[in-house]
């Protein structure tokens, strides 16, 4: 079978948009729609979800019959280390406190590049932590607990 030209990127975009629309639409089902005079909390979201679905469908349909650009490289390593950094900070900032949580978050983020040597990453994380503590905690006086209740001292 001959492969017809199609734009893989836009097919994925269309499908994802439709999926998002269905998700929002499904979440709307529990809400009161109301009337057009007194709109309930579900009215506007439902209209938007429907609109998003139609747009997604159009993107999907238009993807066939033309060649798309290649998808390009994906920063897997970047995603594996950059995205968990703020999550980890969020999980530990209350328990461990600002200083250790920030140090660990910076250390995790530093692993995202294969060009940064482990020792250098460690040094960088220490420097970032000290500088940020001085600037944000002491300098700007943001109300963070520097060391949290999970630590024995």
């Amino acid at each position, binding site marked *: 079978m001959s492969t017809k030209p199609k734009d893989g990127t*836009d097919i994925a*975009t269309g499908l*994802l*948009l439709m999926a*998002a629309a269905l998700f*929002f639409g499904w*979440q*709307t089902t529990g*809400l*009161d729609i109301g009337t*057009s*005079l*007194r*709109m*309930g*909390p579900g*009215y*506007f*979201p439902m209209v*938007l*979800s429907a*609109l*998003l679905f139609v*747009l997604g469908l159009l*993107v999907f349909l238009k993807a066939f019959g033309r060649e798309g*650009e290649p998808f*390009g*490289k*994906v*920063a897997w390593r*970047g*995603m594996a280390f*950059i*995205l*968990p*950094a*703020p*999550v980890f*900070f*969020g*999980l530990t*900032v209350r328990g461990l406190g600002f200083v250790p949580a*920030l140090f660990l*978050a*910076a250390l995790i*983020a*530093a692993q*995202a*590049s294969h*060009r*940064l040597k482990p020792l250098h990453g460690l040094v*960088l*994380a220490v420097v970032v*932590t000290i500088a*940020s503590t001085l600037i*944000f905690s002491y300098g*700007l006086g*943001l*109300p*963070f607990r520097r060391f949290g209740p999970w630590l024995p001292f």
Partner: protein
Amino acid sequence: MDLLSNLALGFSVASSLANLAFCLIGVILGTLIGVLPGIGATATIAMLLPITFQLEPVSSLIMLAGIYYGAQYGGSTTAILINMPGESSSAVTAIDGYQMARKGRAGTALATAAIGSFFAGTVATFLVAIFAPPLTTIALKFGAAEYFSLMVMGLVMSVALAHGSVLKALAMVVLGLLLGLVGTDIYTGAPRFTLGITQYADGLNFVALAVGVFGIAEILRNLEDEHDREVMTRNISRLFPTREEFRQMFGPILRGTAVGSLLGILPGGGAILASFASYTVEKKLSKHPEEFGKGALAGVAGPESANNAGAQTSFIPLLTLGIPANPVMALMIGAMIIQGIVPGPNVVSEQPALFWGIIASMWIGNLMLVVLNLPLIGLWVKLLSVPYYILFPIIMAMCSIGVYSVASNTYDLYAVAFFGLLGYLMSKLRCEPAPLLLGFVLGPLLEENLRRAMILSRGDPTTFITRPISATLLLMTAAVLVLVFLPQIRKRRDEVFSESDA
């Protein structure tokens, strides 16, 4: 004269020692972060936003404005020196600026950008001062229906001016609107789309969305392909342009300022269109159009002026109507709301010191940029040679602290990671983030005004077309949509945008 006394009030506020200091810090910090490769004005402001929260409202907005100009200037520096525009508005500068740098005229290109920006900024500041007050009186006549129509127009404009597919940009607006609705419904108190997480009852954090979609997505993009950058620093010794070069840049700067000021007022991202439009105009008018793309001075002077003028006049819809014209203005709205100021026509009458102080600080900020940056260019260039892998752990730490400091809500940090992923996915699928952010900010306002308008008209949807202002706005919106989908215009638009990709 009213204007003069108002400006005098503004300058007295903005030139207090403390405010001057904040403006200066803002400009320096903005340039510092903006110079970092690949980080544009939006991401810079999103990251630095939290450090202004502790300040007085006036000081904090003045500092933010300073950060904005600094970041924008930093963006053009990277565009010229390493061909890496942080934002689409400086993409045009990169075309000829980088070529100038390769020919050893980096200093001239940088100076031209600074001089053009300063001139445009001065003119545009006056335009804001002249036109903002009369517009607020019109804005006070706006009812819910007019606001709704105006916002629809802004959103559609942002789609028309976005890079790439119109359909995808529309979808991004709608997705942004939906994300903006997350949280408690204002009329009934019903939670919407919160997935049962009470920490999201107040809605998704705006800073988290901006930092994720603009900042973190940008870092991930840069990590895709780590390679050494070629920094054009060889011949930066001669900064000040010659008399001949001054003569060459004069016309483009004037025209760029005019084009930029006009387009900047349009809701929906005028500054970006302004630089594209100015580039096209200069290329058409030039006696040597073949020089464009190979290092034409006019190709830097025009778009840079237009860009800056547009950036300035985009404060007009923000200050008069409370409607953001672009993602940066959306961030400004976020900052104002956090400071307890409701943006809109009432700001000018209720808080004249704040209103005129911000306008005066725009000019002061621009002046500081020229005075500071021309001598400091050597320092910024050194920053460019800092390897990227050292920068992003620092940026990640700052993002985490910044987002957490907004409301001490750890769920905002999880949202950052989610929006970082979403932003990266969007860039892989070639969807523009700017319409999404604009939709996010306008979502709740749009719904509120729609519902209010329908109640006021007793459920009659014709209210939007029977009220003259609202009807005009909707008509203009429809015209823009038709234009965008017309085959000829579409082709033309693709050409304009593809020039920047070349």
